């Protein structure tokens, strides 16, 4: 007996279940990322009390990067609001995201050149650690939204948009920790 005869879900039902499962997946991934950064934050809070903690000057380039990432969240919402122009706004989102990533790499190399992981400077180590781990999460956002662009299904942008905004919010959080604490 072939499997097609046994299928008991209509295609509509099937894709609704698939979308629900994707939402569950993204929700858990967000909770996990939040736990990861909570663990880093706790470590940061403990480590900064030691005598060798010397705050690294905050690269001003990062303010521009922050603005770019926030703007990309805006364009992504435009993509979801306007299905007709969804692909155009999605491309703009990815471009802004890439610009952010480029800026991050620039700031990174600058810091790394100054002796990235020298034992004597834990704040700089945290700086690089947090930006790098955040970058890894951004890669996930690129993959999800890039796949959405390839499939040109703007109505399926929900989970990818949720992750993109989350990565943006995570970055703002990282900036607050690194700059003000």
């Amino acid at each position, binding site marked *: 007996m072939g*499997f097609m005869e046994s299928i*008991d879900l209509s295609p509509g039902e099937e894709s609704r279940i698939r979308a629900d499962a994707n939402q*569950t997946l993204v929700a858990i991934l967000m909770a996990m*990322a939040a736990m990861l950064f909570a*663990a880093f934050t706790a*470590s940061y809070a403990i480590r900064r009390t*030691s005598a060798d903690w010397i705050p690294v000057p905050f690269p001003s380039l990062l303010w521009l990067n922050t603005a770019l990432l926030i703007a990309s969240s805006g364009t992504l919402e435009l993509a979801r609001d306007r299905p007709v122009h969804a692909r155009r706004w999605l491309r703009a989102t990815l471009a802004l995201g890439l610009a952010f990533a480029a800026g991050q790499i620039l700031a990174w190399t600058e810091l790394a050149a100054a002796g*990235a992981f020298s034992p004597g400077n*834990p704040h700089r180590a945290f700086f690089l650690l947090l930006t790098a781990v955040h970058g890894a999460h951004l890669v996930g956002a690129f993959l999800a939204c890039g796949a959405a662009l390839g499939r040109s299904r703007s109505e399926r942008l929900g989970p990818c948009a949720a992750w993109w905004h989350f990565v943006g919010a995570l970055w703002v959080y990282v900036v607050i920790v690194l700059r003000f604490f």
Partner: protein
Amino acid sequence: MEGPSGGLVRMSGTHAAGGFWTRYVFSRDHKVIGIQYILTAMAMGLVGGALAAWIRVQLAWPGSAGISPEQYPSLVTMHGTLMIFFVVSLALVSGLGNIIIPLQVGARDMAYPFLNMLSFWTVLPACPLMLASFFVPGGAAAAGWTAYPPLSALKGAIPGSGWGQSLWLLAMALFIASFTMGGLNFVATIFNLRARGLTMMRLPLACWTYLVSSILGLLSFPALTAAAIMLLLDRHAGTSFFVPSGVVIAGQVQAHQGGTPLLFQHLFWFLGHPEVYVLVLPALGIAFDVIAAFSRRPPHGYRITVWSLIVVAVLGMVVWGHHMFTSGMNPYLGKYFSVVTLLITLPFAAIGVNLVASLWRARLRWTPAMLWALGLISAVGTGGLGGVYLGNATADLHFHDSYFVVGHFHFMIGMVTLFGTFAGIFYWFPKLTGRLMNERLGRLHFWLTSLPMFALFFLMHLQGLRGMMRRYYEFSQDYVAPVLWLQPVLTVLAFVVFASQALFLINFFRSPFRGESAGPNPWNATTLEWTTPSPAPHGNWPDETPSAWRGPYEYSRNGNESDFELQSAPAAPGVLPSKR
């Protein structure tokens, strides 16, 4: 066969079509993947068990096992690591979870079959990596399964701190990635792929425990991930997150400064303690399902059990400090960790009472699965009592790192999880193979494993009370002399346990061919997996997937002709099951 759309094909199990390789090796079928996990865990279990036996020889007859004092910590470390992550986690959680969940929720497969396959093929290479560390310069990791720095952070600290620790970290990274993928699949499957009418409060308790345990694992593993990343940077990039100033190795003062090893301990136990519940809860869930089927009664207090599981999980995330009472923490903090730890006894006692009350006035069927489930109740009760002493900060100052602790955690994550795994394998074996395992051999295996194990780990408590410390190569202190005569006794018991696993292996590998053939529902059980033929085909149901019309445990209802009602049996003609 191609389906109309990719999504439809994936969810409906069409992937089953294909040759030997896609069917049995790179399979996306949750049942095949479950068996792959169990076989992997068995192989690793043999190594882990052999290590235990080897350690016991050294403890009983010091010097006769051919282990040097430098090697001994490696053996202890690897025994713990293999058993916790590569045996219990893989067999009970990844293995049985994969087999049970889609069948019990009435789904054709996991929500993400490809991710499921990837999860297995991620952890498989971790096994040879972990084992290879015995053969690298310096030998296997020796910093304990807890991998505390500075031993794990400084490559020259002890012989196992070099290559061995690097391989350990690499293998653990693969394990965490695999376990995460598996957990995501479990949660998405249980939340989103349930059959029509299968509301959360109609979910079998085994599924509930896998759900709670998966969420707990997913939320606590990131802390270990963070710790592992920082540990790697300390090892390889010269940072100093965990390494304090002034560590001297071979006369050389290390360049690291300012780090704190206690930070690692906090992060580790933030995972480490919940991990206990990640492993223990599914064993309890399996016990509930098995006991219901063989006592022919619904488990006592279904809702209380569900809520207790959730409370255990929540509390389990905020008690990690009780592993660190002797680390010099503020007494107020110690008091907090004591109080929340002892609070866990409340939901746990509720679960235990429900397990016992489920047996009240029941006519029990003494199948091997039932024996394991009953043994599990005993192990949870006895092991749990030890936890009450250890959770008390003042008492723990005395018990810490003694054999009292070793006995306690072997009761919980050794016996409870193993008993649950055996109960589950005996119970669901016919659904996978279409045949029953041999009952006589099963019972013999049960008695020859459970009784010596119980004696072994119970007596370890007594040794601990006399101050015998774990991870010691040899004991010469006067104060442990009164309990030293126990050492050879315990070693013999350990050998009996190890040897009796041969009975299980024979039963497991012979029964698929020689076992008595089982119908679709050999135990007259009620949950959805028993509505499909045995062995369950690819895609799980040959025709339509079932709907749930009632709770998971309708046994011995008054007025019914048979003493059970399948979950899929319609309530009345023409009535549709409620929403999914």
